[in-house]
């Protein structure tokens, strides 16, 4: 087996296949469920959708609960997907590690913003 410790240790890579494969599907199901629930609330409301109706959808506590979980699910789902893209196309470890770090910053920043929006509703 190839040496994977000390100076030979791989700093980038997946090496946890099943866990992420499963996580990708669990988070996908959550987001699909969220999509259907949100869509149902939009379609079942009567008349044109203005601010009151749109913000009203997100104001109930259970919807905030679900939206928060979906934001976290999206964060993890997007991380696995984007990391796979970098691992497939970017071979130099230095460039790949940099892109991984930038992706994490991008995703965590976005998730924080989305949670902040949800928090003050």
């Amino acid at each position: 087996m190839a040496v994977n410790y000390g100076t030979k240790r791989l700093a980038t890579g997946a090496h946890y296949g099943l866990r992420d494969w499963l996580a990708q599907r669990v988070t996908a199901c959550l987001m699909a469920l969220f999509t259907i629930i949100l869509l149902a609330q939009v379609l079942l409301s009567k008349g044109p959708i203005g601010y009151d109706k749109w913000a009203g959808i997100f104001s109930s506590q259970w919807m905030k609960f679900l939206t928060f979980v979906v934001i976290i699910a999206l964060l993890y789902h997007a991380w696995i997907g984007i990391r796979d893209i970098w691992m497939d196309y970017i071979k130099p470890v230095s460039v790949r590690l940099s892109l991984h770090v930038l992706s994490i910053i991008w995703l965590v920043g976005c998730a924080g913003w989305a949670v902040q929006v949800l928090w003050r509703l």
Partner: protein
Amino acid sequence: MTDLASTVRAKRPEFRNINAFSDLPSYKLPPAGIVSILHRVSGAILFVLMPFIIWMFDTSVSSEFSFARFTHLFGAGIGFVPGWFFKLVALAIMWSYLHHFIAGLRHLWMDLSHDAVTKEFGHSSALVTLTLGSLLTLALGAKLFGLY
């Protein structure tokens, strides 16, 4: 030496690197391959446009004042950027989401039912994914640009 090792075998096919000019024009990706690469492309688009998506979420739910700012963007635009440009960006998000969603359901279906993991189902479900994604994008896009 055994007979097995000394037997002269047929020459195995040899694969060289793809030549961009002679091979790529004739190289045809099957529908399942197109769905697969578009699944990746749509995911990347959503990743890149994520701040805009959250901006839309932020302005549309925060207050009536910000909601007006949200709708104003798609009507009058902002600065020198016209509203239709943002509608096009929104259309790109719609297509990406729809394609990613449907292609993802196709994945889940193939995970749950191993009967679905065949060449035929891969082909037909890929065509359904591409058609459904395009049609829904067209329908929502027509609504977005006020055609009905």
